[in-house]
């Protein structure tokens, strides 16, 4: 509704204000997603603890990182598996 009004009054989305708002939104997504190295290390240790219950993993080669895509942030973990624990059916 307001968009239509804005268009009528000549406020299209390419106005520099809208560019600024969009750039700001993206830059803040990235800024806010920064986790300190210490926290990331703690997260990594906890991940190892949980995964070890189920899988045999290469703890040395485990990588955990935050990755920024255009407009989103993902926690990406690369966890090489050495072997699977034998399933125990009781």
């Amino acid at each position: 509704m307001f968009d239509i009004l804005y268009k009528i009054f000549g406020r299209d989305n390419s106005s520099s204000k809208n560019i600024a708002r969009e750039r700001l939104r993206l830059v803040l997504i990235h800024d806010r997603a920064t986790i300190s190295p210490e926290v990331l290390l703690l997260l990594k240790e906890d991940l190892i603890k949980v995964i070890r219950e189920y899988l045999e993993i290469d703890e040395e080669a485990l990588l955990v990182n935050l990755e920024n895509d255009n407009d989103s942030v993902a926690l990406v973990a690369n966890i090489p598996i050495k072997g699977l624990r034998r399933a125990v059916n009781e």
Partner: protein
Amino acid sequence: MKSKVLVITSGKGGVGKTTTTANLGTALAMLDKSVVMVDTDIGLRNLDVVLGLENRIVFDIVDVVNGSCKLRQALIKDKRIESLFLLPAAQTKDKNAVTPHQMKNLTNELRKEFDFILVDCPAGIEQGFRNAIAGADSAIVVATPEISSVRDADRIIGLLEAAGLYDTRLIVNRLRSRMVKNGDMLDVDDIIDILSINLLGVVPEDESIVISTNRGEPAVMETSSKAGAAYKKIARRLNGEEVPLFTLEDERILDKFRRLLKIAR
């Protein structure tokens, strides 16, 4: 009334922290409150010149925390308003000369004497920032409608929360309503939406600030200053009054009146 310690901060430099501190302090004192403004920008002191009190400094904040002088000796009384005082920063001493713990003690000492303690924070997020926020009950973040300033404000709000200060309010400074109308400047709603923070007030861009600073007289003392009027409103809000926010809509109506008057002439 319980005294309030408010820190005025922004992250980015040059957005108007010192001008805001000087004007809010003066405006609160004009409301008959006892006010002390504390300049914590050690090495780069400026609040004294904005207030026109630079010639009266004998002792400074570092002298006080070192015990080289009594707190009372370092407080500079404003030349215009009875209940207004300044505790100046040190200009030549090491900027790590004050610790957060000392700042906390200092603000607690000032609470005994004053209704409002306004702490002018240096730019940046280092020791000076840590000191300035140490004794504060809440923070006022100043931001201009620019990406860089709003981004830094976001970072500061995060750091304030990490330090246990959750009741942070925003002053949008130097807003140019004409540019906002033309879609060439972030508007207040965009900024508060992005920062998800409460708005304390909006101060328009105003050349009279330059003139006031040249003279060393805060704009709130100048009756015709638009920025001064905005700061006065903010001061009343800080004093617990309900004062409606000045919106662009109001200005539009005012503009229409002005135009009508011009036509009538």
